[in-house]
């Protein structure tokens, strides 16, 4: 009970990290910076998962997003070097329109989000590992296998796309 305020402070810091990191991804002019801030956002998100008591998901988040996907994106940045140009050209022509449409929806949804209340059931005490494993490997075993096929297909597809014809 006495440590509740710590939880609140942590939540506020993580929120700040997520929103700030995400805004940085969108508005930073250095792409490498965008990528690193994206990793930071992912890390904060992992912290959110911990706050929610989902340690397993948080571990996955760190491994897959912060680890694998960030590295992939950094490779993408590395292979597509861009010449310098004015900051205004970082944005598409439709940017004003996009802002016009996104802002009201975002506001509306964010406000609407506060109307959600906690459910009646209490989360399992021992973290999320046991229920998650039970669900994935018993009820969702087949979709899980299909997902592995999807990954395989994506891997083959990526190789085919990037492979040079003359090699």
């Amino acid at each position, binding site marked *: 009970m006495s440590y509740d305020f710590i939880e609140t402070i942590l939540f506020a810091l993580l929120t700040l990290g997520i929103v700030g990191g995400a805004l940085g991804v969108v508005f930073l002019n250095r792409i490498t910076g965008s990528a690193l801030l994206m990793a930071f956002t992912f890390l904060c998100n992992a912290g959110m998962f911990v706050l929610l008591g989902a340690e397993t998901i948080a571990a996955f988040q760190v491994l897959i997003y912060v680890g694998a996907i960030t590295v992939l994106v950094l490779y993408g940045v590395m292979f597509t070097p861009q010449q310098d140009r004015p900051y205004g050209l970082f944005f*598409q022509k*439709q940017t004003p*329109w*996009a802002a016009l*449409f*996104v802002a*009201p*929806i975002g506001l*509306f*949804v964010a406000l609407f989000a506060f109307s959600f209340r906690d459910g009646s059931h209490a989360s399992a005490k021992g973290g999320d590992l046991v229920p998650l494993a039970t669900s994935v490997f018993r009820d969702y075993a087949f979709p899980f296998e299909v997902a592995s096929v999807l990954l395989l297909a994506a891997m083959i597809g990526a190789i085919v796309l990037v492979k040079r014809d003359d090699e």
Partner: protein
Amino acid sequence: MIQDVWLIPALPLAAFLVNGLFGRRFLRHATGAIATGAIAASAVMATLVFLEVLGGQERTTVTLYRWIGVGDFTVNVSALVDPLSSVMLLVVTVVGTLIFIFANGYMAHDHGFARFFTWFSLFAFAMLILVMADNYLLMFVGWEGVGLCSYLLIGFWFDKPAPQHAANKAFWMNRIGDWGYTIGMVTTFLVFGSLTYTEVFAKVGIATQANLTLICIAFFVGAAGKSAQLPLHSWLPDAMEGPTPVSALIHAATMVTAGVYLVARSTPLFVAAGPALQVVAVVGAITAIFAATIALVQFDIKRVMAYSTVSQLGYMFLALGVGAPVAAIFHLATHAFFKALLFLGSGSVIHGLGNEQDMRKMGGLRRKMPVTYWTMLVAGGALAALPPLAGFWSKDEILSGAFLSGQTALWAVGIVTAILTAFYVTRALWLTFHGEPRDLHLYEHAHESPAVMTLPLVALAIGSATLGLLVGFPPDQGFIHSFLGPAVTVEGAAERAVELSTLLGLAAVSVAAGIVGIVIGVAMYVRHRPDPAAVTRAAGPIYRLLVNKYYIDELYDHRIVEALRAFFGVLWAFDVHVIDGLANGIGRLAAVGGGGARRLQTGVVGNYALTVVVGLLVVLVAYGGYAAGVFKR
């Protein structure tokens, strides 16, 4: 044994599948042995079935499975084994086996050896289905199957133009016949509600005279197309472009007799529909004499035989028409033997001369090809109806049947045709085998065919010589009558009590006709008295008429084909301008609409994403409005 009757067509089918799948690459010349073995086994089976039918199994239906079942209407894949079909099975398989053996020698050096035996086996399968079927629909399957194989085998040497044209001609002419068959079959179904022979024949009484006549005329159109009767005869002579074994099996012994078999099978219908029977008789008689006159002047040895086949088929229809179906089937059987022999003999000659078919370049070959000569002499004698050869007994029965039915005019036509037949067969054999060689180069290289070809000739010659005496003696009461009679004779038909002296008199007349024809032939071509050339000159216009086959092909070309072409030109224009215009218009509409909608696609991914967000906004606003009760009724 009868229960296993399905093995008879199944064996050639298996041979077809094996040869078709593996023949060209792997089996090559083994295909001939496979196909021949299959049909020979079928022949053994057919013999066993025949003996069982002979032993008292009068009529058995062997059902393989139910093919169509809609309400009361059932079509089975089943075989009707009765004396008629067992005789046909026997003829098809036995003559077929001999011709298959012959073809092993005849086709030995052909590139398409495997292909030939593939189609040949398929033909045997289709023909056996046609014969065995217990209903008109299954018979139609075989009917179309043999038509297809006929097409494929006429056009066997498809790299040459003449076989292509001949194959197309045969196919289209047969389509007209098939059209008739289809109308007959559908009308039968509409009138009787069934297509099974036994059910239809049991209900003949419920049909009106007009319906029966329509059915029978339609079926006869089908029969005329398949059996090359006037006016659908002209494809058969052209069909001689195919390999000679094909001519022998398909266009002499079996397939072309399918029409005869159809009419014989439908005897109860035809007898009940009086006028149709008369049509059959008249068409048969006219075709007989018509084709015989053309055969007088042909120089291509195979074309002589082709017109002879048309003529003999006319005899069979004449027999059917005058109410002597037993005689028709009898003649079908004997004709299968001696005409197959004549064709195979011609093939042997052609083979021995290196693909020369013109009789004007032959002559004197009897010294070079004794086996071919003697066997063909037997067949020629049978064709000319000399006693005691097979043709005599069957043809005599047809002629006496015609005479006794009271249609003396048809009988007279038959007698005249018999004279012509004897004449042209004498002429053909003399030009080919006697006299002095007219082309010494060809003569020098001529050789007797190998044993694989001559043995079938001998076997067929034995059949041609003895078959008539074995099954047709004494006339009108022979074995074939007691066996086939119950199967094809309609109950209640008046039994004819015929004096033996009348029969003998009629037989004497037909023998005399044959002898007269032979004497004229010998006089003209041996003694040159009168000289053939002089006769040709004297009968100039008639001769030209005959050489040009009565200008039938030209008539078809100029009148029918051009009229049809004009008519279809109109249809074509309608199709191009209205139907296609409609289709193209719809297509153009889509193209114009698509061209307009295309402008929406900027290709900029961001625009698409923005559109998604706008859509999301719309949905959210709508949902919010709904939640707030704006849209409440």
